[in-house]
């Protein structure tokens, strides 16, 4: 007697897992598997966040755990938001963020566009271009402090060769007007390849058939670039901007190695400033409030950006 399709399907369907594990329901088993992850997330993400929010309203100092802790209300927040020095570090961070992203996107996209054109040795060039981002930021920072040295640094000699200026007449990391650009140059040198790789992925995802159709329609190269290449790479580019933006907002090691935040506080980014407050001055409560303000800022900006990114992807 032959089996019907229904019977075969019934046989193929495995019995409920719960029936094999001491009468537990599927839902209970699912919770058993998910619970450790939830507990871990609560322990390492949510609890510290709530604890930090609580500390931000106090004068707690982690280096003096036995001292009396006073409830300060919003005093820490008020101090931070009215402190002109903190606004200066915010400006320094914004300057760093904007210019590194502008340069990295422009140069990264251009490099990707050039590499994407089929020529002999483009794989070798890709490897060479990608090398800087494989180095440790601390090493890169140290390395560039030597390059920037007015007396022995190659950078000054290169500029002097091109412009005829005195090589020891300017100091990239010692001059207030040049120091912010010195870190923009190094970060761009190091991370442009990352943007290039993402753009390259975007460029290689565009089917040739689209360009062939455009050729049939006698669209110029310039027109093809603006109506096909740019729109199709844009989501990739925006993703690269998001990654670099988040990374550079918390930039620390490279700048500490290069300028230490100086001269004065010209290159003291918020991450460096926050570290000083939290782990050098040990003003834990104050630093917690600072961290919360930064968290809210980044979270807010990132949320707006992600919405914009989703809209671009939907087009």
């Amino acid at each position, binding site marked *: 007697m032959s089996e019907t399709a229904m019977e075969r399907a019934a046989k193929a369907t495995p019995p409920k897992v719960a029936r094999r594990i001491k009468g537990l329901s599927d839902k209970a088993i699912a919770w058993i598997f998910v619970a450790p992850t939830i507990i871990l997330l609560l322990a390492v993400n949510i609890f510290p966040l709530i604890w930090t929010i609580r500390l931000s309203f106090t004068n707690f100092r982690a*280096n*003096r755990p036995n001292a009396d802790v006073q409830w300060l209300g919003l005093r820490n927040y008020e101090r931070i938001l009215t402190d002109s020095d903190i606004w200066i570090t915010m400006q320094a961070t914004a300057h760093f963020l904007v210019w590194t992203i502008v340069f990295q996107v422009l140069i990264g996209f251009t490099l990707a566009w050039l590499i994407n054109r089929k020529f002999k040795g483009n794989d070798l060039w890709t490897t060479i271009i990608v090398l800087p981002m494989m180095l440790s930021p601390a090493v890169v920072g140290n390395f560039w402090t030597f390059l*920037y040295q007015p007396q022995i640094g190659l950078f000054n000699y290169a500029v002097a060769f091109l412009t005829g200026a005195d090589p020891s007449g300017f100091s990239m990391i010692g001059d207030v007007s040049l120091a912010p650009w010195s870190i923009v140059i190094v970060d761009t040198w190091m991370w442009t390849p990352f943007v290039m790789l993402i753009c390259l992925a975007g460029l290689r995802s565009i089917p040739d058939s689209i360009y062939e159709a455009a050729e049939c329609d006698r669209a110029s190269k310039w027109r093809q670039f603006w109506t096909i290449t740019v729109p199709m790479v844009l989501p990739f580019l925006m993703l690269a901007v998001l990654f670099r933006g988040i990374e550079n907002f918390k930039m620390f090691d490279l700048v500490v190695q290069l*300028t*230490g*935040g100086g*001269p004065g506080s010209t290159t003291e980014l918020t991450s460096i400033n926050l570290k000083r407050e939290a782990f050098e001055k*040990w003003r834990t409560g104050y630093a917690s409030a600072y961290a919360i303000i930064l968290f809210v800022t980044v979270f807010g900006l990132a949320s707006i950006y992600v919405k914009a990114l989703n809209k671009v992807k939907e087009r």
Partner: protein
Amino acid sequence: MKKTHIIAVTMFAAATAFAAPRSVQADELTLCWAAWDPANALIELSKDFEEKSGHSMSFEFVPWPNFADRMLNELNSGGKLCDLMIGDSQWIGLGAEAGHYVKLNDFFDAEGISMDDFIPATVTGYSEWPKGTPNYWALPAFGDVVGWTYRKDWFERPALQAEFKAKYGRDLAAPATLAELKDIGEFFQGREIDGTTVYGASIYTERGSEGITMGVTNALYNYGFLYENPDKPYDLEGFVNSPEAAAGLEYYKALYNCCTPPGSSDWYMSENIDAYKSGQVAMQMNFAFIWPGVNADPKVGGDKSGYFPNPAGPGGHFAQLGGQGISVVSYSDSQEAALEYIKWFAQPEIQAKWWKLGGYSALRAVVEDPGFATSQPYAQTFLDSMAIVKDFWAEPAYASLLLSMQDRVHKYVVADQGTAQEALDGLVKDWIEVFEDEGKL
């Protein structure tokens, strides 16, 4: 037969183990300090302690830029890594009040160790908290002070001597005042010597840790800067930011602008040493600990270098104190052995050997010995410098006070922002805020 053997051996081992008196148990001590030349001398010196006590020593040395971060984190977390800590002088207040260090008064009394036997400035600087009270948390271990090294061989060149005399009307010699120091700096700045462009002086400008503060105070003190009203603690207004103090800060900036090598905007001890040893500068500001290394250097050592104390200013003659005391860490499980080390270290013959090995003893018996001043080319300068020392705050909140000063001073001197008076007014504002937070105001 075999069985009885084993039983006998086991019983003997057990008996010896129980019978061994606790006092002779050998401990393994870890001594924590900065990674620098004197630390190597201490390793050599400590071999004698290991031999005599039976304890073994291990050392945890951290480079200066990370020293405070690493070691204060260790202390703040109640870590047991260090049994003995040669901590910076500014840490004493925190070490005492936060319970990181063992109070040594009873131990000193029991062992007959008297603080009167040490250079008074080092006792105040490295051992006492609160300052000026007989509460001791460390034994003075390494006396140090900011002083100057100069290229004696360049200064002695007849052509340069003549040119200098014609220009300034006096001999080209180690300066006695800050004004003279600046003249000499300007004289050498950009000069070509033996085919190389050289500069006046390397001074402290480092921003990240404590560098520029340890440098600028050598000008500030000598122009009239005071940390507080001598009659009223924590009264800062008019003392920290007095017009004289502002003049001192202006002097330091002028010295930075006129007489330092290009690119020296973030220099501290090691950069200054490099600049001096590589023949870039005529004079070098640095802590005295580097002098044995300079003296032994094949390129600039011996007769080629001379030493002088920080020159006087219009408001006095002072120099920034460096150096450290040695403390027993309260979290250590080997406190008895650590105290044993301090007792051994305090002995005059060990202190004399310490000086010979390159460590700077703070014991009066060593530095007041008739032969001391001539024992090394820099010994007299060390003595002269130790007689004029002043130190930074040693408050528990010293780090906040220090970072504020670093920031304000660097902004003015190196980054050229604002005026000297504005920088010091800002510093007073910052320090008042710190003391208010501390409940001192």
